[in-house]
Every structure is written in structure tokens, then in C-alpha cells.
């Protein structure tokens, strides 16, 4: 059978999702994508992040290589201008022709610009694409005041962007309130209070009549009520209109107010042409959110692959953070359903507004509005979507009255309940994942992608996973090992509160038995981050893995490798020569590491002290490559040499490495500093990474390379040196206090309820009131730093441990080297036999 030719017009989020879904079905279709924008699909929902420091490239959802890999033919920057339905071909602006069996229109929408006189001024812009962002940014450079026309969801996002650009920001709305579609009057009023408190001026009920030349600013806006507002730039974000021009021109049915008419099969009036996303009009309605668009894409892809699938409308409930304010809207937020009743809670001290709309008998949840506190959103949404009967006193769901609001138990959810709406993961999918062997939130997240979108369902997911595991008799045992019935975090608190300084005391007070290779190093690490004693002090001997005990890294043959610290990767020729001389003298295998240091391999136990004596004499100190500790802070050369650098990245890397060197943590810690957004130091693959900006430093957290690489998340932007250091202090100390054993920062954050937002609250906003304590603790650790090797070399008792045999000066005859590429390496078993035989 010849493969079906599918042509997709438009490469926005929905168009891309369609391609991804259809490729995943391996239906043997040949797919061609034609996009108008010069770049492949990107995440439009997070557009305003670019103003908070995120690189536009990071928004990318697709790239040319991936499409190539999928066998998808992709063309960008050349829009389709003609559909020849009789020939089943489309024609682009450049005159290229593509034949189709099935055509999918995913042309999206464009921003509506009211036809006000003056709107074509070059200081009047729109907010929709990455290119729009560039223009807004450029325009903001010579502006002091900015106005956003439109007080809806996108308008407020855009206001956030203007504020981030440092403009005095105004929002002008035609309707009497903000976010009139999603919020009722009370919610809208509360949102306004909060937005104004953040420094954004809100003008509602304003009908713009003219945009002319200003007196104190570049422009003057004149409103129907006679009032005026001066501004340097205007951004229109007053709603969207479906891009249905192709349909109009080539005679597919469109709605009275726009939109390409589709049926439940997403078919237009031509049975070979589908339409999905914001350009589609289903049942008289345009779905202007991404999640319903995805559902349409999935249904259309399934149909083309020959499966049964229909689109029968989608829930428009939404939860988001606008200008830092939590806003949630579910179902019939305005209480327009006949016979419905409402419960309202308003707290003008804490600026929280909540309303639920129920059926007349109070049993079914029809809608809800949440402003200032979205903590109940997940439960409410489940009540609404699954028609679960409400508790007899439904007001308890929003009233903070006595104690906690009743949380909807995970067990009460039907298997069809959607838990993660970003990735459309149901309770059933999660139960299946657990049946297939997942036994933690992290596992389930990895396998189903649940909670890896907006993260709003994290608490619900954790609740569900715990509940499922418990119900299968998997006791969710958090004990670190058989000797301590506690988690690492609990042990940390016990040691801190009890001021316990030794493992024996911990075991005596909180554990049983002798301990083991799990709890001993874990508690040694806790004690080190609390009190920072030398790892070889008597009470701590025997607690550490061999690497920590002998302060070197054991290799497969029992010899060790040595890594001196080279802070920031900066090293003088003299020091390089010194390393070379030591390596030459002891015949060590030498390799450059990924962390910009030099690793020396093949040192026997008894050689470690003399080697270190020579290194210390040459001015080196230990690099802690053996410890669950800060390893290296990689850097690029920065503005001292580089044509593109904007800050001294090497200087900052050295400062950071010197500050945190020797810091013991639940796992190894890596860092890097890049001198500009080209990111040559790969800071986004580190536990904490720093990227220079023109105004300071952007801080990224919780990335890692290794087995499961993960990009770090942007945490804070444009920090000065001191703020950067204090945020890192708090971040690291909070991680050390609360992470599990051997949990890297990324998994730690994934398991924190609330994820990065929660972390920001703790570190930046100091929501737990811990910041001063965390910084003080870090200062104390920094103050008690010692080079462990220097201390060891001064202490004959500690040196006694570095003997191959306690009763002989011989060396371990099991260590045998051969030469390869002019350097040593451990002999393989057969080589060793040959060598040992010939020496006898």
C-alpha cells in the first residue's frame, strides 16, 4: 500500500503535537509540515519567561533534526497561500506545491488589534510570537512607560513581561474587570487589588478612541470617557482571532464570528481536510487553551491512523500564576447554570478570594474561582470533572475554618480521572505504571510524564502514588537501612537538635545493631555538614567509604586516583609543570577530566601521602573528587579575554569553588559559571549553574549530566555578586538538610511538593523564615574548612592508615601495570598471569 501523504499547515504547539502523536502511531504516513514562522514549534505559553531571562531557544519544542529523524519533511518561513482542493495540493508563497491525501490545518490565531486610529504607530505592538518579543524588547529600551491593552490572561502575562523589562506598567481593559472570562466579579476585584499592589496600574471600563502624539511621553491614549493616558509604547493583547483566511478563500465553512467549522471528527466541510487548535470552531466555540488543542490533535492523528477517536469538547478549567498571583478557574465560574447556588469566602487581609458554585442541592460542583490561594484547585477540579458527590458541608472546601480543609482522597477518584492535564495522564495510567513496577513518585513521573508539565498536580500525584503503594501492601518504608528507622532528613534533624557529634551516639540514641555501609557514610556526611570535623578524626574512622577514608578514588585494581583542586579550571604553567613532575616521578597515568582538572591514576595506598606532600608543597590542595561534596566549578574564560563575555566568569567560578570546597552533601555537587548566554561552561547541566548577563548573573538549579541528564531550571535572574552567593548558600544548605541519601538536586526538587516554586519561596522569599539560619550555617562550614590532606600529613597517627600491610613494608603484589599509549594501565587477568609467570 502506498503511504498516505499528510500535509500539516502550521507548526505551533498544536500542530507539533499532532505530528508527534501521528509519528508515535507508526501509521506509515508521510508527513509534511509547513510553518509560517522561521523556526519550528515553541512553547508559546511560557513566552513571558524570555523576559525573566530564559533564552528563546529554551522554549523550542521541536527542531529540524528531530523532524528529520522522524522522517518528517519540514519547511519553515514559507506559508501556504493556496489550497487547490480539486487537485488535493497546497501552494506556498514561494510557489512550492505539496500534494496531500489528508490536509491538517493548524493555523492557530492572531492577536486582535482594535481598529483604533493610531494603532498602526510603530510604538504599537502585539504579543504572540518570539519575533514579537524581540520587537517589544527593542522598543522598551527607549521607553519609560508601557501600556497593555487587554486585561485577560495573555494581557496580564504581557504586563508581567513589561514589568520585567523595567517599565512603569499599565493595563487598560474595555470590560469592567480583569480576566472576565475566567473570574467572577469578586475574584476579578481581588485579582485587581493584588496586581495593583505589585505596582501595575489597572484601568478598567476604558474604551480607547484614539492613539496620538503625547506630551510627556511618545504617545497619548484617549478614552471614550474623556480621560487620557500617556505612554511610550502600547502592546495589544485584547484577545485572539482564529486564522481562518485559507478556509474563507477556498470555501470551507467558517463561523459567523470566525473559526473553521469542524465536526466531532475534526473534519471541515471537506472530508479530506481537518482543522485543529485555535483556528477550529467546534460546536460554536473556539478553544483558546493549549490542552484542548492537544486533545484535538490527538483525535485527528488517531483518525488518520485509522483509529476511532472523537473530540466532544474539553474542559476549560485553568490554574496559573499571573504576575506571581495564583489564579484558578473551574467550569461555570460565574454561576450561570440555572438553579445553582454559591459559597463565597473572601479575606481582604490575606488577599484571598474563593468561590464554589454547586448544584441547587449542594451535591455537584459546577464551578469555582480561586484567587490568591490555589491549594484547593486539584481536589475541586476532580470533584467537578468526575461528578463526585460533594461533602455535606461543601463550604468547608474553601473556608479555612477549623483545621485543614478536607482533601479529596486519591482512593475516591475513578480510574478515568485526569490527574495531569498537561500530559493527559489519568489515575488509570498511574495505576498501570505502578503495576508495571514503578514504586516512587519519581518512577511514575518518569514513566507517565505526569506532573512534568506545569507541576500543578504534584501533590495529588504523590498522594495517589503513596495511596496505591500502601493499598498493595507495599509499605512505603522510608527507613534508611535496618539500623535506623528514619529518613536521612529525620536523622539530620535528630543530630542537629540533639547536637550529636558521633555515629556511636546516634546509634545508641536512635538506632540498633552495628550500622552498615549505608547508614555509616550517610551519618558521617550529616555530621560533616553539621560540625565539619576532619573525616579521619577517631570517632569518624570506619564510617566512610574507602574513597573518603583515604581521600582518593579507588579504581578497579585497588589503586587510587588523585585530583588536586584547580579552582575554576585556572592554572599557572608552574603548577601544571608541578603536576607533571609528580606524575612522572610516581609513573601515574594522567588524564584531563571533564571538570577542568587533571586526574592522576595508579597510586598505591602507601604512595598517597608522599604524592600529596609534593603536591601541597607545590601549592595544591585536595580536590574532594572522592567525596559526596562540591567537586568542581567549571568556567569559560569570560570577559577578560572573550569577545562575547559580559562578566568575569573565571573570577566568579573561583570565588564559588573556594567558598564551597569541602562542603559535604547527600551526593556530589557540580557547578559551572558561563560568561555569556553562549554558555560554553555548560552551567545548565550542573546542580547549580551561573550564567552572566549584562546586569549580573542568572542562577540555574537542579541540573545534572550522567545517566539521566537534566537541564537546570532558571531560578533567579540578574543577581548581583552578593545576592548570588547568598541564594546559593541557602539553596545548598536547604538541600543538605532535606534531601535523601544519595539524592541529587534534581530528584530532590522533583520530590519537593511544589517543586521549583516552593524552592523559590524558601530561598528567595524566605517563606520558612530559615534564610538567616541557612546562611549562618554555611558561613560556619566555610569558616572551618581545612585541606584534609594538609591536616593528615601533619598527624603521624592518621598516616599510619596508609600502609599496605601493618606488619611488612612490601607492596601489594596484586597490582600489576602494563603500558598502553605510553602510559600505565592495570593489567588484564590474562596479561597478569603471563607477567607473573615470566617473573618467576
Amino acid at each position, binding site marked *: 500500500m502506498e503511504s498516505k501523504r499528510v500535509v500539516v499547515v502550521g507548526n505551533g504547539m498544536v500542530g507539533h503535537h499532532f505530528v508527534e502523536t501521528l509519528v508515535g502511531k507508526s501509521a506509515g504516513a508521510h508527513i509534511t509540515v509547513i510553518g509560517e514562522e522561521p523556526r519550528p514549534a515553541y512553547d508559546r505559553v511560557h513566552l513571558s519567561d524570555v523576559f525573566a531571562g530564559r533564552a528563546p531557544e529554551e522554549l523550542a519544542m521541536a527542531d529540524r533534526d528531530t523532524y528529520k529523524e522522524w522522517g518528517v519533511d519540514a519547511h519553515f518561513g514559507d506559508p501556504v497561500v493556496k489550497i487547490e482542493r480539486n487537485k488535493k495540493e497546497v501552494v506556498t508563497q514561494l510557489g512550492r506545491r505539496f500534494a496531500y491525501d489528508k490536509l491538517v490545518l493548524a493555523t492557530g490565531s492572531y492577536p486582535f488589534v482594535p481598529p483604533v486610529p493610531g494603532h498602526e504607530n510603530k510604538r504599537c505592538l502585539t504579543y504572540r510570537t518570539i519575533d514579537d518579543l524581540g520587537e517589544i524588547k527593542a522598543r522598551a529600551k527607549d521607553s519609560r512607560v508601557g501600556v497593555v491593552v487587554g486585561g485577560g490572561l495573555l494581557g496580564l502575562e504581557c504586563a508581567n513581561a513589561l514589568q520585567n523589562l523595567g517599565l512603569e506598567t499599565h493595563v487598560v481593559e474595555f470590560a469592567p474587570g480583569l480576566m472576565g472570562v475566567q473570574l467572577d466579579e469578586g475574584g476579578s476585584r481581588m485579582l485587581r487589588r493584588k496586581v495593583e499592589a505589585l505596582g501595575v496600574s489597572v484601568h478598567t471600563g476604558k474604551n480607547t478612541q484614539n492613539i496620538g502624539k503625547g506630551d510627556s511621553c511618545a504617545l497619548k491614549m484617549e478614552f471614550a470617557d474623556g480621560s487620557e493616558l500617556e505612554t511610550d509604547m502600547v502592546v495589544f493583547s485584547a484577545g485572539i482571532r482564529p486564522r481562518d483566511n485559507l478556509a474563507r478563500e477556498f470555501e470551507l465553512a467558517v463561523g459567523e464570528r470566525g473559526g473553521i467549522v469542524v465536526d466531532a471528527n475534526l473534519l471541515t466541510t471537506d472530508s479530506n481536510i481537518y482543522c485543529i487548535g485555535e483556528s477550529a470552531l467546534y460546536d460554536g466555540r473556539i478553544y483558546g487553551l493549549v490542552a484542548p488543542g492537544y486533545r484535538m490533535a490527538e483525535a485527528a492523528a488517531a483518525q488518520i491512523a485509522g483509529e476511532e477517536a472523537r473530540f466532544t469538547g474539553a474542559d476549560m478549567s485553568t490554574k496559573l500564576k499571573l504576575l506571581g498571583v495564583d489564579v484558578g478557574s473551574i467550569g461555570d465560574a460565574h454561576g450561570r447554570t440555572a438553579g445553582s447556588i454559591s459559597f463565597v469566602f473572601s479575606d481582604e487581609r490575606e488577599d484571598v478570594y474563593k468561590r464554589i458554585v454547586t448544584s441547587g442541592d449542594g451535591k455537584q460542583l459546577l464551578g469555582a474561582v480561586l484567587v490568591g490561594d490555589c491549594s484547593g484547585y486539584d481536589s475541586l477540579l476532580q470533584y467537578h470533572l468526575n461528578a463526585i458527590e460533594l461533602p455535606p458541608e461543601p463550604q468547608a472546601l474553601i473556608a479555612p475554618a477549623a483545621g485543614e480543609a478536607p482533601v479529596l482522597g486519591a482512593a475516591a477518584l475513578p480510574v478515568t480521572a485526569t490527574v495531569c492535564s498537561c500530559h493527559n495522564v489519568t489515575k488509570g495510567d498511574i495505576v498501570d505504571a505502578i503495576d508495571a513496577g514503578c514504586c516512587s513518585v519519581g518512577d511514575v513521573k518518569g514513566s507517565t510524564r505526569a506532573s512534568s508539565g506545569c507541576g500543578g498536580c504534584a501533590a495529588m500525584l504523590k498522594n495517589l502514588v503513596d495511596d496505591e503503594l500502601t493499598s498493595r501492601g507495599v509499605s512505603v518504608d522510608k527507613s534508611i537501612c535496618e539500623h535506623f528507622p528514619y529518613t536521612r532528613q529525620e536523622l539530620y534533624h535528630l543530630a542537629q537538635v540533639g547536637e550529636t557529634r558521633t555515629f556511636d551516639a546516634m546509634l545508641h540514641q536512635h538506632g540498633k545493631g552495628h*550500622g552498615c555501609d549505608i547508614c555509616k557514610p550517610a551519618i558521617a556526611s550529616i555530621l560533616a555538614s553539621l560540625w565539619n570535623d576532619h573525616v579521619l578524626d577517631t570517632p569518624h574512622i570506619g564510617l566512610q567509604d574507602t574513597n573518603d577514608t583515604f581521600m582518593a578514588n579507588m579504581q578497579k585494581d*585497588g589503586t587510587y586516583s588523585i585530583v588536586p583542586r584547580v579552582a575554576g579550571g585556572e592554572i599557572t604553567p608552574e603548577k601544571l609543570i608541578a603536576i607533571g613532575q609528580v606524575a612522572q616521578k610516581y609513573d601515574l597515568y594522567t588524564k584531563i577530566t571533564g571538570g577542568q582538572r587533571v586526574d592522576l591514576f595508579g597510586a598505591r595506598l602507601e604512595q598517597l601521602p608522599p604524592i600529596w606532600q609534593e603536591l601541597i608543597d607545590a601549592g595544591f590542595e585536595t580536590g574532594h573528587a572522592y567525596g559526596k561534596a562540591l567537586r568542581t566549578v567549571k568556567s569559560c574564560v569570560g570577559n577578560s579575554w572573550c569577545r562575547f563575555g559580559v562578566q568575569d566568569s573565571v573570577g566568579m567560578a573561583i570565588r564559588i569553588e573556594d567558598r564551597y570546597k569541602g562542603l559535604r552533601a547527600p551526593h556530589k555537587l557540580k557547578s559551572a559559571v558561563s560568561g555569556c548566554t553562549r554558555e560554553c561552561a555548560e552551567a545548565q547541566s550542573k546542580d547549580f549553574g551561573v550564567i552572566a548577563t549584562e546586569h549580573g548573573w542568572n542562577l540555574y538549579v537542579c541540573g545534572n549530566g550522567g545517566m539521566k541528564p537534566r537541564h537546570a531550571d532558571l531560578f533567579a535572574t540578574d543577581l548581583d555578586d552578593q545576592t548570588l552567593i547568598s541564594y546559593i548558600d541557602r539553596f545548598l544548605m536547604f538541600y543538605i538538610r532535606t534531601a535523601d541519601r544519595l539524592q541529587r538536586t534534581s530528584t530532590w526538587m522533583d520530590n519537593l511538593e511544589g517543586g521549583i516554586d516552593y524552592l523559590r519561596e524558601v530561598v528567595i522569599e524566605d517563606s520558612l523564615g530559615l534564610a538567616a539560619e541557612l546562611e549562618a550555617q554555611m558561613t560556619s562550614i566555610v569558616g572551618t574548612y581545612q585541606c584534609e590532606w594538609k591536616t593528615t600529613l601533619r598527624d603521624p597517627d592518621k598516616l599510619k592508615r596508609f600502609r599496605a600491610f601493618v606488619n611488612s613494608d612490601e607492596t601489594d603484589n596484586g597490582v600489576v601495570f602494563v603500558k598502553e599509549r605510553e602510559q600505565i594501565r592495570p593489567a588484564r587477568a590474562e596479561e597478569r598471569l603471563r607477567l607473573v609467570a615470566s617473573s618467576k
Partner: protein
Amino acid sequence: MTAAEKLNWEVVCRRDDLVAQSGVCARVGEAQVALFYLPGEEQQVYALNNRDPIGGANVLSRGIVGDVGGRLVVASPLYKQHFDLNTGECLEESGVSVEAYKVRIEGDTVLIRN
């Protein structure tokens, strides 16, 4: 103890050479013997051949000692399998074991049965 019995025990090292709650290595003839010193236990000292049969290197004296399921063990520093300090058996891989030696402390002296 009879003279004949005494003859079978060989002095390895002094008590001072041992490290409490941890291991050291000694030469006994051609063999490398890992000595573990647990002063709180009745027997106080345990001895296993130093060679980790799984990793194939002489490293057991450099492992962490402890107990697992009520058995005193050392964890190999290479791949973390546990070896019973009394019998030398590997807990994770049945059939794998290292030689265990009889060892005792007399006054300041550590003795091993040859």
C-alpha cells in the same frame, strides 16, 4: 593451652596496629589477610582473605564493617557485596566466599591460626 596448640598460632601484629571499627591488612606468609577490629564484640577481631573474589583486587580490609540481618559483615569497597566476618560467605552471591581465618588477641598481640 598446650604447647602443641600454641605452636599452631602465629603472631601477626600488635593490637595498636589495628583500627577500631575498621580494617587493616597484614601479610601472613604469601597471603594477604584483612583484620577487622570490633572491640565491643566478644571475639574482638576477625580475619578474612583480603582479596575480593568478585572485584579481583586486594581490597576487603578497606571496606566498611557492620551487620546485615544479624551477621557481622564487611562491604567490599569495589562493588559493595557483603562478606560474613565469621565464615567468609558472600551474602549476595551464593557459592562465592573468601577464606576466613581463626584469629585472637592475647594481651597486646594479635595471633592467627596457621
